[in-house]
């Protein structure tokens, strides 16, 4: 069989560029990742607080709907009528006791069970559905759903481990760090990029770029490449990871001067620096907490702004990011206002995030005709035990090893 691709090395340090633009690989990802043994982030529990609330979203590129059922539980189903395949739910959000397909008015409950079929028993001599038609056998495709500390996930898989085990013992304390009490949903913003979804996952596993691409930090003297850090993978398949940039007082301007990095500039000060406040609210005071839970979630704390980012593939050459902002139910009015103000830091116009999609698009455009060429991901490869530096590409290598395994892509034999 003609294999879609192989990897030149088995350590994640060489990635063939075709994984970013091949339709064949993209289709295989839908099957092996999104419909495979993964838990996919759908949204926040707090987005659908009341019975009947629903939100339309996706697992990979499959349209799904997450709902709050009458008994307060969570459900999710594929948004495809069991009759002739039409999308049943046509709204982004809402509240409904039942979901009716407009095409022939087949009707489903909040859990996706078929309630009724018009003219099932015929009318005035018309036969209707055959006598052996059993509505219970024609529900919407119902998914396994679970939530962890207010984050809602679903999976097509019957075999994947339970959600807490999937997140794993190394990653859970970091999720708990941010989701330590009830949250208030503050709204979402959406960003569409003409680049492959994995380029974004590389980006959120790449502390090396932070102070080099995002010059806001350094221009306004906020963030230093020498900052203390904690960067580690999940200790499982390497697909989840955490970057924690830990606040310290020491100034490392000299390190920048020495290396003549373009991002160093002493000249600028913000007129309103309240945007950079960092009100201590966690045991470890970090300016940045960036934690991808593969494949659809990135948990983010940057200063006091809190976001669950949902990453959705839109074909091999595009992805969409949905930033779900939140605070805590017990936030003071001042804290809530600060979180809203600091939303300026992230999202599509974020001071310290807007460049990410610019960079991923540059890679997409640069590699389109060079599928057999590969990236070089070597930073800190000789020191795998180092977890306290931002100058590392370890998390990216770990991700590609996990990806290669999940996709069944072999390593080239030398």
């Amino acid at each position, binding site marked *: 069989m003609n294999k879609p691709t192989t990897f030149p090395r088995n350590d994640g340090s060489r990635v063939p560029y075709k994984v970013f633009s091949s339709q064949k690989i993209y289709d295989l990802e839908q099957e092996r990742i999104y419909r495979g043994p993964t838990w996919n982030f759908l949204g926040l529990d707090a987005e659908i607080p009341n019975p009947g609330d629903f939100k339309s979203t996706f697992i990979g590129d499959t349209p799904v709907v997450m709902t709050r059922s009458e008994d307060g539980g969570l459900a999710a189903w594929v948004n495809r009528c069991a009759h002739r395949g039409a999308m049943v739910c046509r709204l982004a959000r809402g509240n409904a006791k039942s979901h009716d397909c407009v095409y022939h008015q087949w009707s489903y409950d909040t859990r996706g069970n078929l309630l009724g079929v018009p003219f099932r028993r015929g009318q005035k001599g018309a036969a209707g559905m055959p006598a052996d038609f059993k509505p219970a056998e024609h529900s919407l495709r119902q998914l396994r759903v679970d939530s962890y500390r207010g984050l809602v996930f679903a999976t097509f898989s019957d075999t994947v481990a339970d959600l807490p085990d999937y997140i794993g013992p190394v990653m859970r304390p970091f999720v708990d760090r941010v989701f330590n009490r009830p949250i208030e949903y503050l709204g979402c913003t959406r960003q569409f990029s003409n680049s492959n979804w994995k380029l974004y996952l590389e980006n959120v596993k790449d502390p090396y770029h932070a102070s080099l691409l995002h010059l806001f930090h350094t221009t306004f003297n906020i963030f230093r490449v020498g900052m203390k850090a904690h960067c580690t993978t999940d200790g499982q398949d390497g697909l989840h990871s955490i970057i924690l940039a830990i606040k310290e007082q020491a100034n490392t301007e000299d390190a920048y001067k020495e290396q003549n990095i373009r991002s160093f500039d002493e000249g600028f000060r913000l007129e309103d620096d309240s945007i950079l406040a960092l009100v201590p609210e966690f045991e470890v005071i970090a300016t940045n907490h960036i934690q991808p839970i593969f494949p659809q979630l990135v948990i983010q704390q940057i200063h006091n702004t809190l976001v669950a980012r949902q990453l959705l593939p839109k074909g091999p050459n595009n992805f969409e990011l949905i930033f779900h902002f939140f605070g805590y139910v017990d936030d003071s009015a001042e804290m809530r206002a600060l979180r809203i103000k600091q939303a300026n830091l992230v999202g599509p*116009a974020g001071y310290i995030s807007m460049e990410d999609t610019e960079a991923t698009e540059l890679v997409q455009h640069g590699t389109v005709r060079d599928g057999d060429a590969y990236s070089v991901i070597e930073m800190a490869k000789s020191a795998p035990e180092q977890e306290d530096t931002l100058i590392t590409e370890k998390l990216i290598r770990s991700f590609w090893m996990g990806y290669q395994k999940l996709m069944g892509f072999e390593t080239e034999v030398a």
Partner: protein
Amino acid sequence: MNTPESQLRYELQMLLDDYAATIDEDRLEEWPDLFLEDCLYEIIPKENESAGLPIGIIRCDNRRMMRDRVISLRNANIYAPAIYRHFLSALRIHSVEGDTVDFSCNYLVINSNQMGQSLVYQTGRYQDRVVRTPEGWRFVQKRAVYDTSRVQTLLAIPV
């Protein structure tokens, strides 16, 4: 014909044209000058606005933050050069109280990129409040409530 109402409409139209030209002609340093020191400038998706949720993509609650935004765009942020053209329509004056006027109007921003494409970048409605000052009308509030909920690539330059 030169009634107070038509005179006011004319002046607001002039202000909006000046506002659009300041951005479209890349005179961003002058953009905060069209506002009072205590002001609100924000760009917020309609889906949040309609749901009563506060999050937008840019929110400056004073003019210092607007100047910071411009300094950051000029010196820190990295984005592909782009040219905006604003198209404004359907001006509606909602209230006039002394020297304060509330009005709204549609906006459409077409973005032309380096490859020579011109794309609909964002459309929505401005919800504005202005006051008359000795220097002319100035914005106290400008809220761009946008319908194009998917922001293409990134938004660096204000709308």
